[in-house]
């Protein structure tokens, strides 16, 4: 406000007492944060290498030669993670939405749908994702499906889709229920049918509201794609395991961790940003 007034009058004015005070306080807190962070990092860098086993750990986990030799191949293995992720994510989104709508059904004739949704969500949320992957990834192809329909890529992705859609259906349901009754009243008073109300009024708002949670789940999904390595696909975690076994060295795992970090941290920051933005809106 003050700034616009200043420019409106055409000449900059000296900062007010309050502005000067706040600027000084801001500088001081920045300085404190910088100094304490630097001190913490310095302690880590100095103290950890003083541990007696540090050299052995460094050789096994932070071996530059092994990292250089393995990293390009790890990176190309990570493209398989990305492909599986981008194949599964849209299917998860759609299935979760369908399950959430089924879960919200109120008409008695459609109760079987609701019951199915409840059981679906309960069962798939209770089973560890890795077990779902194992049971579906090995079990269903074992029924006698012929190639290419018995591929572990397909059934592994199906398992991920089932597991994650159960979680995300609940996220959607929470979102749908968080939309205030007054929005439904307004839609109904305009003569919109239940379906139109859901589609044009409730869902768009509900989905917007749960986007930060969705981003967090997507980050978890990207990491859980690595679980598919359990049933065969050689994605980055398995590739790292192969190198670990070849070099008898854990550095390839550190390489894989770096790849995941670089891939997920922007998404996590983005979710935080969205969350902060929503909170700001809600309190406005």
């Amino acid at each position, binding site marked *: 406000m003050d700034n616009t007034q200043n420019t409106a009058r055409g000449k900059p004015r000296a900062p007010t007492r309050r502005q000067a005070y706040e600027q000084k306080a801001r500088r001081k807190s920045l300085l404190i944060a910088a100094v304490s962070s630097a001190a913490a990092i310095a302690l880590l860098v100095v103290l950890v290498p003083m541990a007696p*086993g540090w050299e*052995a*750990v460094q*050789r*096994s*986990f932070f071996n530059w030669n092994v990292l250089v030799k393995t990293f390009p191949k790890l990176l190309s293995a990570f493209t398989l993670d990305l492909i599986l992720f981008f194949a599964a994510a849209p299917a998860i989104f759609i299935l979760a939405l369908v399950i959430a709508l089924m879960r919200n059904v109120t008409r008695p004739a459609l109760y079987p749908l609701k019951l199915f949704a409840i059981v679906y969500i309960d069962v798939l949320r209770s089973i560890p994702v890795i077990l779902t992957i194992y049971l579906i990834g*090995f079990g269903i*192809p*074992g029924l006698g*499906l*012929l*190639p290419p329909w*018995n*591929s*572990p890529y397909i059934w592994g992705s199906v398992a991920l889709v089932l597991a994650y859609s159960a979680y995300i259906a609940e996220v959607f349901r929470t979102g749908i229920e968080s939309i205030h009754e007054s929005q439904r009243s307004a839609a109904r008073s305009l003569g919109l049918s239940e379906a139109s109300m859901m589609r044009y009024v409730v869902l768009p708002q509900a989905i917007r509201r749960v986007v930060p949670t969705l981003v967090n789940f997507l980050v978890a999904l990207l990491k859980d794609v690595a679980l598919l*390595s*359990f*049933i*065969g*696909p*050689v994605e980055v975690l*398995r590739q790292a*395991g*192969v190198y*670990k*076994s*070849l*070099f*008898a*060295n*854990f550095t390839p795992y550190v390489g894989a961790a770096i790849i995941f970090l670089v891939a997920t941290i922007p998404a996590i920051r983005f979710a935080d940003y969205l969350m902060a933005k929503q909170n700001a809106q809600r309190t406005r």
Partner: protein
Amino acid sequence: MKSTSLKIAASLVVASVAFGASANECSTGKTLADGMLTIATGNPAYYPWVIDDAPESGQGFEAAVAYAVADKMGYDKAHVSWVRTSFDGAIQPGAKNFDFNLQQFSILPERAEVVDFSVPYYTTTKAVVVTTANGKQDTPASLSGVKSLKFGAGAGLSAATFLESAVKPEQSTLLYDDVANTVAALQANQVDAVIFDLPTALFVTAVQMDNGKILGQFPTDVNDSPDHFGMVFAKGNPLKSCVDTALAEMKSDGTMVAIEDKWLASGAGVPVIDMSK
């Protein structure tokens, strides 16, 4: 100090032949627990290397080799204790909970930078297993024949690296945590063929699968073939030389051949894959 102990050893030479005390002396003070030899194997340990996952029984090739080595070093059955480790447990930095570890570790130069290996206690080729259920049993046992197969293999068994360097299959290989999952993938038709060391392949086709067949074994003159299995020691463990001596003795006095004959099926008659076609 050293000469005194030598004198004592010499004076006990008669008794020592009976108890293997000469080797025992080699290992004195070098084992994890005084007077005990602590040996590690996999969890679980698989046939035919260890029978019924019970190495204490001495049944199975690696269990028998371990007890024979212990015997040569002067430890009777009562002075051998077993621990279980994963591959990762065997190679992680820090103190080890075993004197040596045997679970079909291939001796590779890269690994030797981190751990020490004994001299090989067994040498084997890798073999390709197919099933008659998927129509791949008539694939020609040649390089071009196996190249066209979709392979499955154990992730920790150096097979992945071998396939990549020696076979270069046309389709991407699927990897599994253990033998059981690898066989399951073959039986679910998710892969056309799997690759194991020959003894495991013989066991899998004879016992675990109804319709399994060994398509062939790789010859001994290609990359990383044959496989030499060695016992793993912590880097710089002085016990290694004692074990190497014991293994050398076992090879020269026929103990090793006898154990092999007893526990490992004969690979004779398994066709060799023609790498020139």
